[in-house]
C-alpha cells in the first residue's frame, strides 16, 4: 500500500543488462510512488524457470542497485522481479496487481523542461491531469496540452476541453503561465502528436482502447510509442 495518496508509477527495467536509470528521470519521478519492475527477458527456447535458476541472483542484485537509486524517504518504492517472455504481458499484470496509475516508458532526453500532454476528450482526462500536476508541481517544466478535433467540428468544443484541463491543472498547483495549449483541426491526431513530440522532452499519454486487431495479434500499448524516442508515461485507463 502506498504511503501517500500520490500516484503510483510502474517503471520497467531490463535486468539482463546493466543500465543505470537517468538522473533526469530519477528527478522527474521524485514526487510519486514507484513500483520498479525488473524484468528478465526469456527467449522462446528456454523455460523461464530455467533462466531464473541460472540468473536470479545476478538479476536481483541489479534490481536492488537500481531500486536503491530510486529510493527516497517520502514515497514508497516497491520492486518486483519477473522472468518473462513478453514484457508487455508482465507490465500489464504487475500494473494491475499493484494498482499503478501509469507506466513509465524510457527514452532519451537530457533535461525535462517541456512536457506534452495529448488529451482525447474526456477519456481518462481527470487521471491524466492529476498525474501531470503531481509530476510538475515542484519543478519549472512547462506543460503543453494538446487536443485534436475532426475537420469541420466546432473548434470551441476542443477549446472547452483544453481550457477545462488547464483550469484543473492550475487547481493542482501548476502556475497558469507554465501551461499552454494547442488545438489541432483535422488530419490524423496520431501523426500530429508524433510530429509535435520532437520539440518536447517528455510525453504523458492516455492508454488507448486496444483495437480488435491488437487483441488478436497482441496489443501494442499505443502505436505512438513505436515512433517516438522521448520518454513517456502512459496513464492507465482503469475503469
Amino acid at each position, binding site marked *: 500500500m502506498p504511503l501517500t495518496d500520490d500516484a503510483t508509477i510502474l517503471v520497467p527495467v531490463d535486468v*539482463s543488462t546493466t543500465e543505470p536509470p537517468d538522473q533526469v528521470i530519477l528527478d522527474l519521478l521524485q514526487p510519486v510512488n514507484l513500483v520498479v519492475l525488473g524484468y*528478465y527477458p526469456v527467449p522462446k527456447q*528456454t523455460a523461464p*524457470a530455467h533462466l531464473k535458476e541460472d540468473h536470479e541472483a545476478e538479476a536481483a542484485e541489479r534490481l536492488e542497485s537500481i531500486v536503491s537509486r530510486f529510493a527516497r524517504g517520502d514515497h514508497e518504492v516497491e520492486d518486483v522481479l519477473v*522472468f*518473462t*517472455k*513478453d514484457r508487455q504481458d508482465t507490465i500489464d499484470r504487475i500494473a494491475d496487481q499493484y494498482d499503478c496509475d501509469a507506466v513509465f516508458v524510457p527514452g532519451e532526453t537530457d533535461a525535462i523542461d517541456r512536457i506534452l500532454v495529448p488529451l482525447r476528450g474526456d477519456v481518462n482526462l481527470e487521471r491524466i491531469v492529476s498525474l501531470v500536476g503531481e509530476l510538475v508541481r515542484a519543478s519549472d517544466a512547462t506543460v503543453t496540452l494538446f487536443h485534436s478535433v475532426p475537420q469541420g467540428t466546432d473548434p470551441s468544443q476542443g477549446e472547452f476541453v483544453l481550457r477545462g484541463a488547464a483550469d484543473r491543472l492550475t487547481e493542482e498547483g501548476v502556475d497558469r503561465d507554465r501551461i499552454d495549449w494547442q488545438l489541432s483541426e483535422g488530419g490524423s491526431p496520431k501523426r500530429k502528436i508524433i510530429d509535435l513530440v520532437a520539440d518536447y522532452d517528455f510525453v504523458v499519454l492516455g492508454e488507448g482502447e486496444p483495437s480488435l486487431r491488437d487483441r488478436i*495479434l497482441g496489443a501494442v500499448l499505443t502505436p505512438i510509442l513505436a515512433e517516438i524516442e522521448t520518454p513517456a508515461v502512459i496513464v492507465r485507463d482503469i475503469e
Partner: protein
Amino acid sequence: MSGGQLERNIGFLEAMTLGGGTMIGAGIFILPGIAAEGAGPASSVSFLIAGFVALLAALSLSELATGMPIAGGSYHYVNRALGGFFGSIVGWGMWTGLMFASGFYMIGFGQYLVEPIPFLDGRAFVVLLGLVGLSLIVGVNYYGTEESSQLQNIMIGAETVVVLAYVALGLFFIDPTNLDPFAPTGPSGIIATTGVVFVSFLGFEIIATVAGEIKDPSRNIPLTMILSVVLVTILYALVMIVTTGVLPYQAIGDSLVPVSDVAVVFAGAVGVVAIVAAAAIAAISSSNSSVLAAARVNFAMGRDDLMSDWLSVTHGRFGTPHRAIVVTGAVIALLIAVGLQVETIVALLAEVASFSFLVSYSLVHVALVVFRRADPEDYDPSFRIPDVLYPAVPVLGVILTVVVISQMAPIIIVLGLGIVGLGVGWYFVYVRDHAVDRGLIDEAIAPTTDAYRVLVPVANPDTQRGLIRLAAATARAHTDEGTPELVAVNVLQIEDPDPQQNVAAERLENQRDLLEATRDIAAEMDVQLRTVAMTGERVDGTILEAIVDEEPDQVLLGWGGTLTRQGHVFGPNLDSVVEKAPCEVTLVTLHDETIGTPVALAGPGPHSPVAARRAADFATVDGTVPTLLNVQQPMADGEAAARKRGEVVIEDVAEQAGLDPEAFEREVIVDDDIEAAILDTVNRYNTICVGLSERSAASRVMFGTIAERVSQEATSNVGIVRGSNES
C-alpha cells in the same frame, strides 16, 4: 525481497498453434502414403484409433498438467509418481522420440521439395535438404528467438487453410470405387498402421512440456490439449478419406508426396504449389516445436537431477539452452543421414517415435492412478477426469497402448526396447546416485496407514535439522503401531496468486531443497520421511490444511521463543495452528544442540500426561531416561507428606501417559515458591517439556503462567505440549 516471479506468456491461441500446429504439421503430408499402403482406405480408421489413444493420453495428461503446471510434460509426472527409474525411461523416451519425430519431419521436408522437380531425384538430395532445414532450425534456436506468436499463428493458419481446402475440394472428386475394398489388410493391418501414424499426435504433448508457461493453465491446458486432439483426429480421418478416395490406395502407397499427388488431380499445378509450400512450412514448424520441447524435457531432467547440468546450461548472451539444442540437433542429423542407407527411413523414424511416446503415455496413465491413490497435498488438479471415466481412461489407455505396440514390426520393437534400455541403463549409471525423489508408489499402494504420523512444518534451514530430529524421535517411539511416518511440510507464502504467474515451478524448487535437506536425516533415522511443499496465502491456514489432509497424530512446530503481545501469543503463524489443530501439538524452542536428559513437569494441568510422554519420546534421541518433576508447597502436615503428595501426582500422570514405571526418574521438590523452584530445577536438564494450561471456554490459546515463565526464562530446550483436541 521475494524471489523472481515467472510469467506465463502462452495464451490459448498460441497453445493451440503450438499443439495443433505440430500435429497438423508434417504428419498429414507425409503419412497418407505409408498409411494407405498399410491399411488401404481403412487407414482413416487407423487415424481415428490413434486419435482415440491420444485422446485418452490427453485426458490423463490434462489432469496431471493442471495439478503440476510446470515444464517437462509426461516425463515430469511419471518421475514424480513412479520415481527415477521410470522417470529415466520416459525422459529418454521423450527426448529420443522427439529426435526421431523431428528427423521424420525433416526427411518429409526434403521429399516434398525434391519430388516436384523432375530432374532432381534421389535420396541423397532428400537427406541433404533435410539437413539444411535442420541446421536452419538448430541455428535459429541456438541464437534464440522472442515469443513471436504472430508469425507462428500466421504460418499455422495458412497451413491449416491449405489442408481444409484440400479436404473441401477433394470430397467432390472421390471415386467410390476407390474405397472398395475398404480394408484390404484387415484389422491387424489397421492396427499396425495405427502404430505408424501415432507419431502425428505428438503435438498435445508439446503443450504439456511448456505447461509452466501457459496462461490460466487450469482452463487452457485441458482445453487446448483435448480440443487439438479431437480437431486433428477429425481432420486426419477426412484427409485419408479424400486421399484414398480420389486415387486408388495402391497408387498413393508408392508415393513419397501423397498429398500433392492427389491435389494435382483436382487442383492442378496451383494445388501442388500450395501443398508443397504448406508441407514445407509444416515440416519446419513441427520440427522446430520438437527441438524446443526436447530442450524443455532436458531442462526438466536436469532440474530433477536425472541429467547432468552441463547439458542444460544456458548461453551467457542468448539465454538459450544451447548445448541441449546442439546435442539434440546432432542426433537428429545422424538419424536423417541414416536415410542414405535405409529406404524406408520415413516409416522407421515415425514408428520408433510412436513407440517411444506410446510407452511414455502408458506410464502417464499409471502415474495418474498413482497420483489419485497417493493424493499428495500439493496435487490439486483443477481438471479432473470425470468419475464415470475413471479408472476407465487410464486402464483403457494402457490396454490400447499394448495392443498398438504388439502389432508393430519386430525391428521397431527391438529399436524401441533399445531406447527403453537406454533409459534403464541411465538409471543405473547416473540417476540412482544423483536423484533424490523416490516417487509416490509406496503411498499409492498403501495410501492410509494407521502408523503414527508426525507433521513438521519447516521453513528455516538452520533449525529444521533439529526439528526433524526431534520429530523423528517422537515418531520412532511409536514403532509398535507400524513404521512411523514423518511429514516435513514447507509453505511458500504467495499472496493473491495470479493465474498468469507460474507458482508451481517455485513450489517445485522448494520441494527439491526440502528433499535435499532432509535426505541425510531420513537416512540416519529409522522412519519414513515424506516432504510436501505447499503454497498458500497464509502460512497458518496452509499448515492447517496439511493437518486436515494428513491427519497426523502430532504436529511439531519450531518456535523462536518470543512472545508477541500484539493480539498474538506465539506469533501470527503459530497461534491458529496451536488453537485449531485437532492432533497433539508440540512447540519447540531449541537453545541447545543436545537433547540429552528431558524433564517433564508433572502437574495438575490437563496436558501434563502428554508432556510426560513427549519427554519420554525426546529421551530416545540420546538414549537417556526422562524425569518427571513435581513441586509441592510444604503444608501443615510437613515435608514428608508433601513429598508423598508429589509422588502420587507423578505416578498418576505417568499412568495416564502410559509410561512404564521403570522407564523414568521421579523428582519431587518441596518449596514455598513453586515457580522459582521449578525454574531452578529445570535448568539442570537439557530439555524441558511442559503442558499448556487449561483452555478457556472461548477456546483461545491459554498459556499457563508456569509454562510461560519456563518458555521465557529457561536456558534449556523447551517443548510446550498440548494434547489432542479430540475429547
